[in-house]
């Protein structure tokens, strides 16, 4: 070689230095966020200390919240938090996953395509774009649900949902009051309105993540299922959904986390009463609502108690995430189709 021209060359000192610096920066920020979480938990635990020592585990199992007698217990709040979140998750997952299947299977697009075909304009430069655009709009509409502020959901629940469901609820109570779920009447705020609104709030999380996960299912799996003579219904239930299960579960767990921590809408709809009841129509309370309502006017002594309650909420959220991750590992292990 006459001339020693190489395209590749070792990194210059400057490049090496910036590279190291950037890597360091990334590490720092990553550790910083972990440090922040630890710091938050530590600070809450510190402030909760006096209450933990004074009330101990009895705090978790008693149901009186009376600042006058200095008796504090959060059993109704723990129950309310878990009960509303689980019910909302049940409704939200059913609708959310169904909506995700509807979108990923392209039903809406197919339907519009069919109409266009009837008029012989399915490949028209303008009309031909309609199926895709309709799908896109539907996807954005559902994701838009996540952008509605919590307080708007609360107001909507208060002024629309409650008056709407009250007659049906009170009819159910009158006719089937012997059934534990209907054992009280719905005066206004209560578990059911809170659950209905909460399930709508968590719907976009479930739908968006499930849809993404469904769209990554390899097409060959679907074709193979059809090739074996499976119907569309069977293909979706037995092949597509199990393959996408990991992502769907992840979405559901994320949604559960959001449901547990949701504050404003629940504080407006759940009734905030220290009642421990399985009835869907009874008022209840949640930990997040208790904290939001009580903090601004709390005495120094109460603050420690509230920090204890916050610690419990943190614990529940953490437990849900850990259990969720464990379930995810176990259930999705054998479910996925060949890749």
């Amino acid at each position: 070689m006459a001339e020693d021209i190489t395209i590749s060359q070792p990194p210059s000192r400057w490049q090496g230095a910036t590279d190291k610096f950037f890597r360091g920066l990334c590490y720092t920020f990553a550790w910083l966020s972990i440090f922040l979480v630890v710091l938050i938990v530590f600070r809450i635990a510190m402030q909760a200390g006096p209450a933990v020592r004074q009330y101990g585990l009895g705090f978790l199992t008693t149901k009186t919240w009376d600042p006058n007698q200095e008796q504090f217990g959060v059993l109704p709040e723990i129950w309310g938090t878990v009960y509303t979140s689980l019910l909302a998750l049940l409704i939200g997952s059913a609708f959310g996953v169904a909506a995700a299947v509807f979108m990923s299977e392209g039903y809406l697009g197919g339907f519009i395509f069919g109409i266009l075909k009837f008029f012989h304009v399915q490949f028209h430069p303008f009309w031909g774009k309609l199926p895709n655009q309709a799908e896109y709009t539907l996807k954005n509409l559902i994701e838009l649900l996540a952008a509605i502020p919590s307080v708007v959901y609360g107001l909507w629940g208060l002024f629309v949902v409650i008056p709407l469901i009250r007659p049906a609820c009170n009819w159910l109570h009158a006719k089937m009051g012997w059934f534990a779920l209907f054992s009280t009447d719905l005066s206004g705020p209560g578990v059911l309105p809170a659950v209905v609104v909460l399930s709508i709030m968590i719907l976009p999380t479930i739908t968006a993540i499930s849809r993404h996960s469904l769209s990554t299912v390899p097409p060959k799996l679907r074709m193979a299922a059809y090739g074996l003579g499976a119907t569309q219904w069977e293909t979706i239930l037995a092949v597509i959904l199990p393959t996408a299960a990991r992502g769907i579960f992840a979405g559901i767990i994320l949604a559960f986390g959001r449901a547990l921590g949701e504050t404003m809408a629940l504080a407006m709809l759940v009734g905030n009463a220290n009642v421990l009841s399985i009835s869907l129509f009874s008022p209840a309370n949640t930990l997040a609502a208790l904290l939001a309502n009580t903090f601004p006017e709390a005495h120094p002594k109460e603050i420690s108690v509230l920090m204890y309650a916050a610690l419990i909420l943190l614990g529940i959220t953490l437990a849900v995430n850990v259990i969720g991750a464990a379930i995810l590992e176990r259930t999705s292990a054998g479910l996925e189709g060949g890749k």
Partner: protein
Amino acid sequence: MRPLLRGVFIILLAALSYPACSSNKTAGGVKLSGAGASFPAPLYQKWFKAYSSSHPGVEIDYQSVGSGSGIKSVIDKTVDFGASDAAMSPEDQARVEGGVQLLPLTAGCIVLTYNLEGVKDLKLSRAAYAGIFLGKVKMWNDPLIAKVNPGAKLPDKPINVVVRADGSGTTFVFTKHLSAISPEFAKNPGANALPNWPVGTRSKGNEGVTASIMTTPGAIGYIEYGYATSQNLPMAILENKTGAYVAPSTASAQAALAAVPLPDDLIAWASDPDAKDAYPIATYTWLICYKQYHDKGKFETLQGLLNYCLTDGQKDSEVLGYIPLPSAVSDKVKAALQNITLAPNAS
């Protein structure tokens, strides 16, 4: 990447230097900051705005964060003055070095509003409304209610009680009154900013309680008079200590305040006024000042401001639904302004 990084650094720098720029004094002027009760907040905001616009260079900032937080801020000395509907307990006062001076600047009353179709001017006896909030009186056609409301079409429906979910001075005053008229209520749940109500659903703030009552047939709850008048809500006529039934109004609330002598510390509770024309649930709300100020500008501004509030300012209160102080009271409060002094080593 480079411009982006630079942008991030500039933002970081700006964020870091922000606390350095903000100080208590605005250029050539005086800044007073206060925090506390949300009940008198609309009136305070109006006063402070009027005063600072007629006094150039004066800036007064009021955060309506609730009585409890207001007291906390005064103890922590993070504000120049506080405000509270529940006054300030002697223990809390003792925690402030140099002492505090409480000044009642305005008053209000608490009304019971309800949602009953076709029932106007609902009358409630003392036993009836104490019973309702104890969960003892459960139905609207209870004899206790029906007896004093002849001719009213009271439905055979449950009473849906709505109370405040957040700790509030309004609740404190209301439960203090209920404790005064009902020994049973005094024993349990008792007077508190957030008591352990035996009955009802809970909503946040006056607006939350109002929304719950308006959307729930058969509901009853307590809210501030000013809020009820501005929303045009029905207000129950209550029996007072003398047995007379009195509707809430500025005059009847002033009668309640006048029935209670104001002691030297200016903390008086009209928990159960004993006068024929007095509405039973009325209360003062207090501004909490330190007894000594170390900043001359702040001291003079505060004195000027308080003088304004106690004279011209009182004219604004009725429009906003507050109760103007009876003149005997405002004279006494003005005299108490002398207890607020400038520290000898002031700058």
